[in-house]
């Protein structure tokens, strides 16, 4: 239902330990943000894209659909950089360094987003959430996040069907109808969320639910070669950027 989530669950790297993928993918994002955008960002983007389409085998069409979201924000967000508002009532004009800075920003965001997408497309949240307690997140919070994850899909399902039922009864013909429909969607989802919570409590009680949602997290252990390879790649990218930065214009 959420394309990234569905892809993550069937991804080729699904069985890798989340830490493996976090070091590589989020390391790439961190490099994209902290290295000079030129030539760092294109190098990072290239590495992330290679990993996504190569070994992780993410479908290009799916990747593009997800990638459009941050690009859209970035394009709108970079617009103001092109313009300069002079102080003291001077008329607005083109900012001298504007296009260059906007381009750098665009490069940085595209590269950083690819790193994030590499993680998102290979690592389902179900593998991440129960492990968050090990990095210091309070168990109560990860439990709530776990329930949020499960309920989100149930409620999105509800929302889709409510919309469908409303459309059948012409719920989107007029402005008034649209607002009536939206209010109905919000209220239905709200009531459904809490009815579900109450029923789930009854459902879990028999299995010894005491307020803590213990689950057995299984899966492959952290791979040392993969980690070492990732760190090596990150170091190489950083070094290449710093060297190339001096050689390139």
């Amino acid at each position, binding site marked *: 239902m959420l394309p*990234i989530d569905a892809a993550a669950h069937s991804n080729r790297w699904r069985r890798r330990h989340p830490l493996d993928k976090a070091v590589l993918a*989020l390391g790439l*994002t961190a490099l994209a*943000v902290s290295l000079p955008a030129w030539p760092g960002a294109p190098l990072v983007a290239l590495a992330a894209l290679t990993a996504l389409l190569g070994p992780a085998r993410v479908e290009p069409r799916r990747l593009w659909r*997800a990638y459009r*979201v941050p690009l859209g*924000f*970035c394009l*709108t*967000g970079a*617009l*103001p*950089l092109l313009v*300069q*508002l*002079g*102080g003291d009532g*001077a008329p607005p004009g083109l*900012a*001298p*360094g504007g296009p260059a*800075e906007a381009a750098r*920003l665009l490069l*940085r*965001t*595209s590269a*950083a*987003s690819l*790193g*994030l997408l590499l993680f*998102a497309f290979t690592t389902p*949240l179900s593998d991440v959430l129960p492990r968050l307690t090990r990095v210091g*997140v*309070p168990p*109560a*919070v990860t439990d*709530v*996040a776990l*329930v*949020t994850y*499960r*309920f*989100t899909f149930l*409620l999105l399902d509800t*929302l889709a069907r409510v919309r469908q039922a409303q459309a059948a009864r012409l719920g989107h013909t007029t402005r008034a109808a649209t*607002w009536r429909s*939206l*209010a109905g*969607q*919000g*209220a239905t*989802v*709200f009531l459904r*969320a*809490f009815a*579900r*919570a109450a029923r*789930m409590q009854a459902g879990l009680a028999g299995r010894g639910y005491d*307020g803590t*949602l213990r689950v057995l997290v299984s899966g492959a252990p952290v791979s040392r070669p993969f980690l070492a390879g990732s760190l090596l790649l990150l170091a190489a990218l950083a070094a290449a950027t710093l060297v190339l930065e001096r050689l390139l214009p």
Partner: protein
Amino acid sequence: MHIAEGFLPPWHAAAWTAAAAPFVVHGARSLTRLVREHPGNTLLLGASGAFTFVLSALKIPSVTGSCSHPTGTGLGTVLFRPPVMAVLSTITLLFQALLLAHGGLTTLGANVFSMAVAGPWAGYGAYRLLRRLGAPLTAAVFTAAFTADLVTYCVTSVQLALAFPDPAGGFPAALAKFGSVFAVTQLPLAVAEGVLTVLVIRLLTQA
């Protein structure tokens, strides 16, 4: 309006994370307390988080013709109070980053500060104030949602203006620029979210 992954320079990203952290930690403490009081609260809070997420997936028609999504924090903050809302919105923002590529991890702190802290607290403050002044529930709820949305957008503009000051006019000019770019979409959205929140609350109180 989520700041995309990589959009903020590293120091800004780190600073906003530090600014948001105390609120989220405080929220996590009150959440842990709630869960300890009653085991069922985990499920209720999870349901609230999912509700917030799904609410932000509603498509609201806006004057510009396109559809936009509400933040959902206005209704949430009235129902669940700002400290808990800080945690729930943080979870929602994490999910949005990883499930929808809305926002990001390096910009999570900045987004949490605007959407999970500043917006909800402002909305809640407005709600309490109006209720204390004897305003009807619908007016207070509308103001809460409108304020939460508007403050979120203002804070985001400040965050961007601080990161990208205008070469000539500095921070104030940059704020004016970012503010006007996003005002086109965000002001009507704040009104729309206010209206929607009132309609939902009315349905819920009738039911």
